[in-house]
């Protein structure tokens, strides 16, 4: 288990993924459901209707008011957590690599899901769904989760929109989506995320950038080679090239932030050079992803 150390795992056990609102899961679990049901936590009363279970009639109220009311309880359900990890070739970039960083984040969030008795699903994305590991539940699946992530190799191009649409089409029930990507997809990411939000899923976007992408070190005429497509772009060196690029990057990031804000998507951005433990223990908690 090289992705996560045992000490760190013990820290993670104390954390839980914070849902924005109660959800309707597929099975009984530890998360509060929006449904009223057979949970133990009292929620409300309502008038008795024919067919209601007599066991939930509050006889004390009947004694006082001479009317029949039934007690409503908040039902506790499990939740599907989908961790979508971008494993395209562009993620295999940076020092340390963005993919490694993404794997560590995915492992951490997946582990938190497992210990909280959620159903954890892992999908590795590039131009399609490369590999998936679904239906993990309980900490006994921790090793499966970590091994799966360790074996993932970078390949292919990024196609976030089409892959997210494909996942949504095959999905039933409610779920939390955690998208871990560099979002460097010429086709964009917006359509896919909008579809997820449109279906009512909670969406968390973890945006990873490498230091080389944030501050490229270019001081001469260069030939840029795309790590994914191997396409070449010849760039004349003249003053302001890095400054110009940074402006474009800044605009790109602002677009993502605006988009996330507009569509109620949780968005966190981090450089792969930051220790991921610090991200989990500090930034995600500060950002309201974990509690």
């Amino acid at each position: 288990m090289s992705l996560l150390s045992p000490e760190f795992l013990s820290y993670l056990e104390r954390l839980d993924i914070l849902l924005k609102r109660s959800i309707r899961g597929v099975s009984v679990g530890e998360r509060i459901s929006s449904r009223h049901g057979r949970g133990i936590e009292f929620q409300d009363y309502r008038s008795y209707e024919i067919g209601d279970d007599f066991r939930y009639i509050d006889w004390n109220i009947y004694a006082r008011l001479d009317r029949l009311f039934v007690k409503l309880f908040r039902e506790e359900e499990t939740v599907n957590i989908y961790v979508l990890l971008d494993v395209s070739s562009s993620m295999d970039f940076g020092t340390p690599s963005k993919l490694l960083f993404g794997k560590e984040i995915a492992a951490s969030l997946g582990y938190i899901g497992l210990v909280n008795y959620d159903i954890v699903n892992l999908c590795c994305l590039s131009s399609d769904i490369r590999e998936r590991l679904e239906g993990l539940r309980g900490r006994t699946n921790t090793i499966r989760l970590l091994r799966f992530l360790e074996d993932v190799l970078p390949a292919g191009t990024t196609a976030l929109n089409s892959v997210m649409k494909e996942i949504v089409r095959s999905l039933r029930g409610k779920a939390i989506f955690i998208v871990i990507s560099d979002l460097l997809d010429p086709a964009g990411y917006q359509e896919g995320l909008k579809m997820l939000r449109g279906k009512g899923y909670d969406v968390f976007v973890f945006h990873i950038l490498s230091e080389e992408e944030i501050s490229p070190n270019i001081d001469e005429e260069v030939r840029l080679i795309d790590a994914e497509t191997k396409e070449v772009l010849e760039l004349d060196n003249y003053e302001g090239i890095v400054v110009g690029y940074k402006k474009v990057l800044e605009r790109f990031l602002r677009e993502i932030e605006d988009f996330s804000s507009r569509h109620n998507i949780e968005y966190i951005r981090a450089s792969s050079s930051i220790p991921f433990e610090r991200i989990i223990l500090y930034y995600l908690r500060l950002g309201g992803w974990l509690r």
Partner: protein
Amino acid sequence: MRFLTPSYLLFLLVIPFLIILYMLRVRRKAVLVSSLYLWRRYIKEREQSSILRRLMKDILLLLQILAVLFISIGLAQPTLLISRNTRYIAFIIDASASMECSDLKPSRLAYAKEKAINTLGGLERGDRVAIFQSDNTVTRILDYTEDRGLIKSAIKGITPKDVTGDIQSALLYVEHLDRKPDIIFIFSDGAFSTDIPRDLPVTLYCFNKSNDNVGIINISARDVGVGNEKEVLVVVRNFSSFDRAVPFRLWDGDRIVDNRVLNMKKGETYRIVVGPRIWRGIVRANIYPNDVFPLDDRAYITFPKLKPSVLLVTSGNPYLEASISLSDVGMVDKVESFDPSIASKYDIIIFDGTSPNKVPPGNYLFIGRMPENLPLQVIETKKDPAILNIDTLHPVMRFVDLEGVEIRRGVVFNASQGENLISTSNGALAWSYDGEFGRIIVLGFYPEESSFVEKSSFPIFIRNVIAWLGENPSPSILTTGETLKFRTRQANELVSIVTPSDLLKRTSDEKRVLVFNETSKVGIYSIRSDNGSIDIAANLCSPLESNVSQQVSERKFNGDMVSKEKGKSQANLWYIFALGTLGILFAEGYLFYGRR
């Protein structure tokens, strides 16, 4: 627009290479990036926001292409035809020997050329100038043109000749051009006595500072009638305006045979006779006056006597042999039968009463019989033929008196070529030929069968025959600029000529004559051919040229200098392209270094 040297437009082929070079120029460092997505956005935004910057990226290449274009067009010398008033101007530049005088440093000719170039600068645009070099002849160096560069290079290219000048001929020549000049500029030293007609539109510039000169004005040799002894006469004149004491030496080969000092009053002429003696090599006369004109301080004379070698094919003829011995011949060999393989060794072959069927080209005397390959047709063998006519103008028949000569038997023939020397009523008895076959004399009778051998005319005839057959037209001495003629042994023979400054190769013509007229330098000309080597002296020896004082006054033409006709003239545009190229290169450099 047209181009004077359009071949330079081929330089435009450089442009494709330039583009290829530009494409290959930068091997950029390869940098791997996660995605080109942001970079492409950046490029797109940059291109949208800064068309100028994009243009700047390729503007260096564009400037380079433009520079090549301008250079090519500039080298091709583009011109525009512009209507202008045109004057036709002739520059006559005296390049005779006296222009080599050193009273003006480095020479009078250098001053004349400089003045000509300065005069050119003062002319109006549209004026057309022709350049003429005047020495012993007139040479049109450059026809009327406006191209100042061409004119200047033509003027600069003029070199002096060691010959007597003839300004009068130059003026006559220029005046008889199809397009008479509106004005004639003469650049000379004025060392000529010819008056320039007043009616000619002449401006004369003279470059002359000193008349200090003592020169050899003649050298010659004469027979004294004793063996081969000769006297050499050298004539020296003091042209200076003061008395001079001038050392004199005469050399026979490398031996000094006369050494004296000539004390000469101003204008005095001194005649020095040396000999009689047998002269063995090149005779050289030198004076050492230390004057402004060293060219006439030396003169040469040679004695190139190439005596012809004779092969006599005879069974014995004492009259003939005696006559040959009296002639001016070199080696004489006598054989009874003819061997064609040795024919080329001899200058003259005499067949006495015998003849092969065919003979190779050469110089022959046939007596009594003749070969079949001559252009002759034998008519008959006639007894007592009567002589009707003798061609006494022919060199062979000079001083040959045939009066009273009786011929008992003779062969009469007709000839399709050549000249009949002795004619009868039926045909020729003697005939001469001078052509590609060589020189040939045919005598149609045996001297023994006539009273010819008893006459004193016979040895004269034989001497004349040998002199004519073995004649070489080359003189032993000539004046610089004269044409030299030389007879080679064979037609189209390659001859080497060592001039005072060069080694030249020339070929004789079909008639075995070599004409050589590049004798413009004082000195010895050695002609090397199959005939051996012959040295010929070329001397200035010209009192006119040695008199280096200015004899005419400068004059300026003050007549109507108004343009006489309106014509199209060419305006050169190359300098515009040159300036453009400079500007482009400057911009290229500025942009290149400004970007770094």
